[in-house]
């Protein structure tokens, strides 16, 4: 029971990380960036090669992965979304799905479909309370890193000049533009930030579990479930939603069904979208337009 709960919370932390990267890009730029699923996959691969080929330690590898994915994220913004800034959300969504498919299959082309796991020998021990809980150290790291990333993001958005500019763009793009805020630079920073967070999530999954090239699409859809659960644009909502879905999934898997393991979360998504589009914790804003 405790074990199931903790497993759920670990998965929840990862979902929350991806969901936050999705939600910041969406709330600031209105881009439903499903391509982050691909970034998530690439983040895991980069960290994997940093550890296995270049013999970096895991933390450094994670930073390398975050930095390189931030760059890739900016390039993707320039290539796939910049020209669509005035287009509809539908159009940006199509472009984002294109990015997701291209990135995932690009990874398949480059590195194959082998199931991999990032070896982290330093963290290869287990905390355990016999009969109650078994917690590999890597999963504790997930909590710590996710927590640090979230706190870091919070301070960045609240305290820095660029963070302020991001909030201004989120509130009203035209007004921000009129006040001389460089939208293009804000967009680049936002994509860099979101992509780096998704890459960290990928590296963490790659080290704590196993990963393959196609883990992105499922996780990004789940992250979207989380975002919807928590209320679009709400970072706090994404965190609570992440843990909630992680735990729900974990209990579903153990007690209800292992064949239809995503049925519950996707049905939840449809239900929430249809019945309460502002999310479980969002303010009542009426229907999203």
């Amino acid at each position: 029971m405790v074990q199931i709960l903790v497993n759920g919370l670990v998965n929840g932390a990862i979902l929350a990380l991806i969901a936050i990267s999705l939600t910041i890009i969406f709330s600031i730029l209105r881009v439903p960036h499903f391509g982050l699923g691909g970034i998530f996959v690439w983040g895991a691969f980069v960290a994997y090669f940093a550890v296995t080929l270049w013999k970096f330690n895991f933390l450094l590898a994670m930073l390398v992965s975050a930095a390189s994915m931030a760059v890739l994220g900016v390039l993707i913004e320039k290539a796939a979304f910049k020209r669509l800034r005035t287009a509809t959300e539908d159009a940006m969504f199509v472009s984002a799905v294109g990015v997701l498919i291209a990135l995932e299959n690009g990874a398949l082309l480059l590195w194959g479909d082998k199931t991999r796991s990032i070896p982290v020998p330093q963290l290869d021990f287990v905390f355990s309370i016999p009969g109650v809980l078994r917690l590999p150290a890597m999963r504790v790291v997930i909590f710590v890193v996710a927590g640090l990333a979230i706190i870091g993001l919070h301070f960045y958005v609240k305290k820095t000049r660029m963070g302020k500019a991001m909030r201004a763009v989120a509130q009203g793009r035209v007004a921000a533009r009129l006040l001389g805020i460089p939208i293009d630079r804000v967009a680049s920073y936002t994509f860099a930030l979101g992509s780096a967070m998704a890459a960290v999530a990928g590296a963490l999954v790659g080290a704590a579990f196993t990963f393959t090239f196609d883990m992105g699409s499922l996780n990004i859809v789940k992250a979207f479930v989380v975002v919807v659960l928590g209320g679009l644009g709400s970072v706090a909502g994404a965190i609570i939603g992440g843990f909630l879905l992680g735990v729900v999934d974990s209990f579903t898997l153990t007690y209800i069904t292992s064949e239809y393991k995503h049925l519950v979360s996707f049905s939840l998504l449809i239900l929430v979208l249809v019945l309460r589009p502002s999310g479980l914790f969002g303010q009542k804003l009426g229907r999203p337009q």
Partner: protein
Amino acid sequence: MKTGWWKWVLFLVLGIIFPFIGKEGYLTHLAIAMLIFSILSSSLNLLMGYTGLVSIAHGAFFGIGAYTSGILMMRAGFPFLAALVVATAFTGLIALAIGIPSFRTKGIYYVIVTIAFQLIVSEIFDGWYAMTGGGLGLRGIPKPGQISLPLLGALSFKSKVGYYYLAFVFTLLIHWGIARLIKSPVGISLMAIRDNETKALMMGLNPLFYKIFVFVLASGLAGLAGGLYVHYLEFAHPDLFSFFVSVDIFLMVMLGGAGTFFGPPFGVFVLEMIREFLHEFVALRLFIYGVLLVVIIIFLPEGLLKPLTILVKRIVPTRE
């Protein structure tokens, strides 16, 4: 359509003589697949192009029709046509059930609902082992028998050529119906809703009713295409109706041009050609699909066919 009648005659003639070239070979097989996918893309076009509803669930409805028709014929002993009709109706019914609540959402939220629905249905195809055979697939779905035609004698649907004609007749009838629908008051109402839903509402139309109607119709047609597909393949598998198939169909419509009548079938042709040339390199093909989606949405939001016809007209001047 009055001025475009020669296009229909052209397609009819080409369609009828095609099997004399393709015989029982691979070309005919390819043509059958293209016919079935043009039913899919044209029906999705009704949603995407004419009503402005982006749906990534067409593969799911395709699959629901396919499995229903296959299972009815295999396990309940339905004759072919009855199975096909019931499967179409059943798919429409499911679409009605999902359509009524889902149209409370709009824009990207609606797209997400369709994706979630697609993923749920895929999981059921995979997991409901007793009914669908799960990951092993459903084997031994029977082909329809034969009919005897006046003057021509018996036509057996067991052969590729026979099945080709069956698919051809269905494709032609459905496209003819869609062409009529677009020109009808209903079609014009759909386009009014696409262009400005609030305005359509003010004009006294009921957008919800029309959206549900077109969603049920398009999904039912996808179900019919599914029936045609599995009775031809004699096999059904969750991968044939997955999320990626939905993306394929979506891409076909975008590629040809959403909201144009001949665009989506043309998109089918282009995509099937890409598939043929790259069928050994699945990863590369999907990578290209991904890039294509981005490129089309940015540079060619109207699809390939419109710019191509303009180009052709510039090279070959016609009397107007």
